[in-house]
């Protein structure tokens, strides 16, 4: 009983949060709605015997990535969305396509033939040990690749935030006189 109640509460929270994400005028509210969604989902993961993923979701996703978004909003300012702009029709079209898409997903789900496995042993399912074993045996290659990916992303982010010469980064965009001036300095 408890589980069912928890499920429904979290499900409603998630949907409300999702609506909040797409409806909010200000980005900060969207972000906070997404945090709500993530936390709700993490509880649902717990219901699904994914203990480690629950923890990672809360710590990394809700805790780090969302905080990153918050910092960016702080950097960029509130930024309200104006009405109008280029593709006026896209508002209608977007809702239409999206809902149609949802309908299709529903009909996809309808037609599935699913047979759950006979033996269900959840004693060690989703534990840290199992996850660890999986990562370092079956998922070793993707694991290593994703760590490289993280490295690349980090380097990229640093480079981009330093600014290319377009954005007026420190060392890149000197005018010719400045460069000449700088070169002359040590000789003088």
């Amino acid at each position: 009983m408890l589980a069912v109640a928890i499920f429904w509460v979290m499900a409603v929270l998630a949907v409300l949060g999702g609506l909040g994400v797409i409806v909010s005028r200000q980005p900060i509210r969207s972000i906070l709605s997404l945090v709500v969604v993530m936390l709700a989902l993490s509880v649902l993961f717990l219901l699904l015997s994914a203990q480690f993923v629950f923890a990672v979701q809360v710590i990394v996703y809700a805790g780090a990535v969302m905080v990153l978004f918050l910092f960016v909003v702080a950097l960029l300012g509130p930024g309200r969305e104006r009405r109008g702009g280029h593709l006026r029709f896209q508002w209608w079209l977007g809702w239409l396509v999206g809902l149609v898409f949802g309908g299709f997903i529903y009909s996809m789900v309808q037609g599935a033939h699913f047979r759950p496995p006979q033996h269900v042993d959840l004693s060690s399912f989703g534990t840290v040990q199992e996850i660890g074993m999986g990562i370092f045996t079956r998922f070793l290659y993707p694991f290593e690749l994703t760590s490289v990916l993280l490295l690349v992303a980090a380097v990229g982010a640093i480079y981009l935030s330093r600014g290319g010469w377009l954005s007026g980064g420190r060392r890149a965009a000197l005018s010719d006189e400045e460069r000449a001036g700088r070169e002359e300095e040590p000789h003088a």
Partner: protein
Amino acid sequence: MPLQAITLAILVLPAAGSVALGLGALRVPRRLVQVIGPGTVWVAFLCSLVLFVDQLTNNGRPHDFTYWTWLSSGSLQVPVDLYVDRLSVFMCLIVTGVGGLIVTYSNGYMEHETDGSYARFFCYMDLFITSMLLLVLAGNLVFLIVGWAAVGLSSYLLIGFFYWRWSAVVAARKAFVMNVIGDVGMVLGTFVLFATYHSVTYRGIFAALPKTDSPLLELAAFLLLVGAVAKSAQLPLHTWLPDAMEGPTPVSALIHAATMVTAGVYLVGRLHPIYDLAWVAHGAVALIGAVTALFAASIAIVQTDIKRVLAYSTMSQIGYMFLAVGVGAYAAGFFHLMAHAFFKALLFLGAGNVIHAMNDEQDMRRYGGLWGQMRGTSICFLVGSLSLAGIIPFVGFWSKEVVLGDAFSKPDPSGFPQAMWAIGFATAILTGFYTGRMWWMAFAGKPSPERPVQHPHEAQAVMLVPVVVLAVLSTVGGFVQINAGFHPGWKLIEDWLTPTFGPLPWQARDLEYFPTAATLLLAGVAFWPIADAFYRRRVWSTWSRRLPFLQRLLERKYYVDELYDLLFVRPMDAAAEAGDHLLEAPVIDAAPAGVGVTARSSAGVLSLAENGLFRTYALVMLGAALVGLLIVLAVRG
């Protein structure tokens, strides 16, 4: 066998000379060119002498040297073979001998050309000599045609030698196109012969000939005759020859007088077994020859350019040769060929001396009085003129006598040969007239006031010596065949060519020669006093004023050129124009251009999909995913 090698050497040496000069045109020094050019021809002459001696001593037994088989496909066997018999040796000697003299002469005549041009000239001349030798030595029709086409090419190259002149280029093209018409006839004739007799070699065809005439044989003979007519500038394919005088004078001498234009005569002679059977075509040969002779002689009497007079004269004399071989007097025809080679080359080279001395002036009306100033050339030119007119004792008399006499005395119920003789008779009178006119206008009398050079100098040695040699040959050359009643006659030419042609089928009685001798005396009369009267005493101009229509007809060469222009050139031009408008631009050019236009327009259309807006792309992606889901749904049921 050394003889086999020597025969091949005759062909290969001038070819090697041509290739060497062609490739090294700008690097070979002029002295070396002067040696290679004529040198290879003289060496070929020596080789021909060797063959001559061989044919002399072995009773004229022919050799058919096969070097290798070029093409072997089913029943089509084309060997690379050279046929050496008395006729081909005869032609080789003339080509290399007279050719050698002319090429040596051009050492001096072409001296004003630049080094590159000089080498180019001799390259082409050697090419021509090789091609002509291939033509006369070939042992099968395929290589005959190869040589035939190659001399056509050489002719084109040499007529258009001064390629910066519009008139020369147009003349060269005209010559080539008309030659190609002849080539087509030759090739078709070969096809007919091969299809009927399954062989292309002379031996094969002659062995397979039936005993009687057949329509296919007539067809082949007529087709081959087309080739002969085009190459020898006979009616109706004659219009290229006068224009060919645009080439340098040695070219006119060699190609358009002594050798190339006689290839038609050689063809009929070589294929005489065919023509002996196909009597309709054979008669056509004689008729064409006679009519052309008269036609050309009539035009020659109004020409003012010295080279044009000689060109029409050539046309006319070849008509005589066609007449001879057309009635079956082959030896007579070839005797006249040899004589003509001597005196026509002599006349052309002599004219070349005059032209050279007069700064390239060719209009005879501006000459006059050269007798006093260029004595050597004048004497030689006189010898040549008398020979052309047929005055005793020069070679022209003897050869024309044989031709006309044999024609007159041939027994034929229809009287056809005698009719031909009559035309030849009339032509001889005209020949005497225009020859005399030419000599009187150019050499006699007072110098014309319009002369470009007041004191022309005699030609240099390298240009005078060949002329003198030819004059000597023209003087004594006739005595090799004396038919007239002075002797029971030694007939060296006829005897020489008997192994090829057989003896003359009818007996030419001495009695018949008197009309012909009388003819030629009349010609002599026409030459000297009448021409003197007309030109020195200026009786001529009243005639031309009295009959302006006739004058114009002759001057315009009977309007043949205009007729051809109307019938052939204009329709072809119109067709080409139409093709350009209707086919070239819209279809052929449009195809690749259309591809480009299509690519651009489709790219233009497709690039509209890249509008730079993220949300459009997102929408499209989602829409595509939707479509994918639809498909999966449909497939799954």
